[in-house]
């Protein structure tokens, strides 16, 4: 009996280990390819790496150079404009559409996929479409001229000061439907009884939404903010496809800045430093959110 007991013991101990063994390859991969790589890039940002990685430390020199570059300030300013407008407009449109769509609308089943489908497209496709759509020569401006509105002018995409707003337009087009879906799910989760009670108490529709519904959507607002802000910081493909960072360098974002400094301008140290700043920006947004999420669930 002792023999079989120890065998059972061995089997249960093996069973204890299997889950950890199953998890370990993924964990190892994440440790190396995410955290190891982050450490590597952080290290590079303190070295004099040019075209190839170098391991000679130079302290904070790259960061000093980075913040002295006008192109980096342009990228940061653009990100500030882009991110705030993108988040604000997507949230406004998303919330509005969700509330309107929630009024027992006939044809909701048709409208919802129409609002949502841009989410399935690549930013390269979106950029290609909007690039020609906004092009003064063949796009919307030309169409309105042909329809008789001769004085109409919309040349933002070729205008240094306005081009960044065309990126906002295209990005909003791509994601606002998705934000709508998030809010719609939130709205459908609200208990109807609360609303009925408020209506019986004589609350107007406006007050009903302002005082009761919108506060109840707080979690949806938070998720929308987190998702949109991290998409904004990561935005790269859309800029490449829509404006290529131009005209001139007017629509440069940190993501395109990092790529061009690292791979085409042979300033890997500065490129790494910019990547580290991007990571810190996202970490500042994500860490508190993830912390709260995980603590709540476990």
């Amino acid at each position, binding site marked *: 009996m002792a023999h079989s007991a120890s065998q059972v013991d061995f089997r249960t101990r093996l069973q204890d280990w299997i889950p950890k063994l199953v998890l370990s390859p993924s964990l190892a991969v994440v440790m190396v390819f995410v955290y*190891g790589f982050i450490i590597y890039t952080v290290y590079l940002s303190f070295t004099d790496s040019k075209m190839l990685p170098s391991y000679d430390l130079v302290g904070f020199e790259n960061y000093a150079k980075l913040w002295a570059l006008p192109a980096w300030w342009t990228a940061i300013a653009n990100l500030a404009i882009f991110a705030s407008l993108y988040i604000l407009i997507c949230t406004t449109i998303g919330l509005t559409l969700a509330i309107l769509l929630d009024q027992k609308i006939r044809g909701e089943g048709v409208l919802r996929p129409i609002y949502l489908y841009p989410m399935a*497209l690549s930013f390269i496709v979106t950029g290609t479409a909007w690039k020609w759509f906004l092009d003064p020569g063949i796009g919307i401006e*030309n169409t309105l001229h042909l329809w008789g509105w001769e004085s109409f002018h919309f040349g933002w995409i070729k205008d240094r000061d306005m081009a960044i707003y065309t990126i906002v337009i295209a990005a909003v087009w791509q994601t606002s439907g998705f934000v709508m879906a998030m809010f719609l799910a939130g709205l459908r989760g609200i208990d109807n009884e609360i609303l009925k009670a408020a209506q019986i108490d004589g609350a107007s529709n406006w007050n009903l939404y302002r005082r009761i519904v919108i506060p109840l959507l707080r979690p949806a607002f938070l998720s929308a903010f987190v998702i949109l802000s991290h998409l904004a910081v990561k935005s790269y493909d859309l800029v490449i496809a829509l404006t290529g960072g131009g005209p001139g360098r007017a629509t440069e974002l940190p993501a395109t800045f990092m790529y061009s400094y690292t791979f085409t301008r042979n300033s890997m140290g500065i490129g790494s430093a910019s990547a580290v700043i991007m990571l810190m920006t996202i970490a500042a947004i994500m860490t508190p959110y993830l912390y709260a999420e995980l603590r709540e669930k476990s």
Partner: protein
Amino acid sequence: MAAVEQDTAVRTGAFTRTFIYLVLLLFALFYLLPFFVMLVNSVKPLAEITGGNMLALPDVWTIQPWLSAWSTAQIGVEPTGLRPYFINSLIMVVPAVAISTVLGALNGFVLTKWRFRGDTILFGLILFSCFIPFQIVLIPMARMLGILGLAGSLPGLILVHVVYGLGFTTLYFRNYYASFPTELVRAAMIDGAGFFRIFWRIMLPVSGPIAVVSVIWQFTNIWNDFLFGASFSGSGSTPMTVALNNLVQSSTGVKEYNVHFAGAILAALPTLVVYIVAGRFFVRGLMAGSVKG
């Protein structure tokens, strides 16, 4: 999601309702217009685009731009059309989606039903990897692919997409499995079933909805990826998005807008089809099992 059919249903008058429908239709127009423009202009001869109205239907219908975009258009230096790149993307997407989904399912199973000290922290570490700006890993990844002998190859791209997709697939399966009764798993353990048998017999049969979410999410993300494709692909492994960008941005010769539009729709087609066929399940599952408050 039990209350899916429940509307907030405030009372509204006829005027308000008309206004609501008007706004909703205007937005539908806003979302449809750019795609409509692409579609209409992809079946026009070039002369009609440069000389005409982009919103007008073609006078002469032609599928020539589509044929050209697919098999003869100049991409970079080669007049191959987008076909080889489309195939590259397919070869890359299928294994990357399959591997990351299977690993995500196993991870989710471990993290919910075989809990151990520190598992939440480990999950947090995996989860954070979803949100990192990929610029932070570009340089070391290029070195690593070189060391592994995978630089500029499709297996290299598959590896990259599996690694950076793991966070999301794990997240989806973990949140989904968390609501599955642990008692059933316990009962099976008492009956002597091991880890893989429980996974195979109990968890997998109920995993359909979340597997759909994971597959659609990964498929869309990997198919649509541009940054990794542009950074790590070689001449024989360039994915569709990068090729499309090369086609559209090429500065030599006449700009064949109609070919560009046809190419863009070709690049969008697989994800659109997936979305149209299974989009409903995706949104439903995403709302039920993703990062939400």
